């Protein structure tokens, strides 16, 4: 996710926007929609994240943050498991590694974590070839992408909190 220097430029929509995600501020009869367009090359988040936001409403107002927190908890467990397997000098259970990666791919796809998912795909390909060096490289990249995603999502939730406070909701 790329928000220029973490500052957001707000303007009226004057061109066709390709929305990456949307925040809606409802204040009585006044509704303001903030449309964010990811301008990085390969999006950290894809349109599946928009799907998650659509599942959030008055009956489930914290749905997105609840799901993302479950994702963080599960992902960190999977990363520990993967790290543990690779640190074992006698490691040979690539099938077990594949199981963890399938789970990580699935959960990452479900929240729209596009780049994390793509690294999992490459990691899985290396594990299917029993390529230990490839797995080690992929593991480092996966940790990096996951940390980047987590930081950006925290920024997003902080911005959302600030926006809500500023609107007096």
């Amino acid at each position, binding site marked *: 996710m790329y928000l220029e220097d973490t500052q957001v430029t707000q303007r009226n929509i004057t061109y066709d926007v390709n929305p990456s995600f949307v925040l809606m501020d409802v204040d009585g009869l006044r509704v303001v929609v903030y449309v964010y367009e990811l301008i990085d090359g390969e999006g950290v988040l894809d349109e*599946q994240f928009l*799907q998650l936001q659509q599942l959030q409403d008055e009956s*489930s107002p914290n749905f997105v943050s609840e799901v993302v927190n*479950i994702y963080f908890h*599960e992902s960190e467990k999977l990363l520990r498991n993967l790290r543990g397997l690779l640190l074992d000098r006698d490691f040979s259970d690539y099938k077990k590694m594949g*199981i963890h990666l*399938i789970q990580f*791919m*699935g959960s990452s*796809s479900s929240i729209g974590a596009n780049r994390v998912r793509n690294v999992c795909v490459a990691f899985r390909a290396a594990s299917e070839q029993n390529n230990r060096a490839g797995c080690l490289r992929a593991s480092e990249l996966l940790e990096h992408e996951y940390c980047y995603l987590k930081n950006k999502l925290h920024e997003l939730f902080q911005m959302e909190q600030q926006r809500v406070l500023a609107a007096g909701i």
Partner: protein
Amino acid sequence: MATHINGSWELGAKMTALVVDDDSINQTIHHRLLEQLGIENQVARNGKEAIDIHCSGKKFDLILMDRDMPIMNGIEATRKLRAMGIRSMIAGVSTRCVKQEIQEFMEAGLDDYQEKPLTSAKIISILRKIHHSGSISY
């Protein structure tokens, strides 16, 4: 029974579904997707739980069956449910997209297969199949 009116689902008697998935995130998202569509649903954490729920006498209009699960996977669970005489719509759900792997899952007794991540549109396409098979009326 669900009625499709002008592009949205309206419910007479509540439609029911079972989400079978070991992943907490998918359980949460799929549960919410179905809930938002007005479909009463519960969650089973693996194929064995899904079998046990059916053995207790519960029946569902729709089963969303994950492929890869511990204890009992989706392929085995689907085979067992069909052997038990369960005729509910079973839609397989997985990240796997290799034709052979999808074929293997379909041959276990699925009515439909959807690649993860599930969306409202994908669930509606499954519901339309239930409609076309005669279980839902306009």
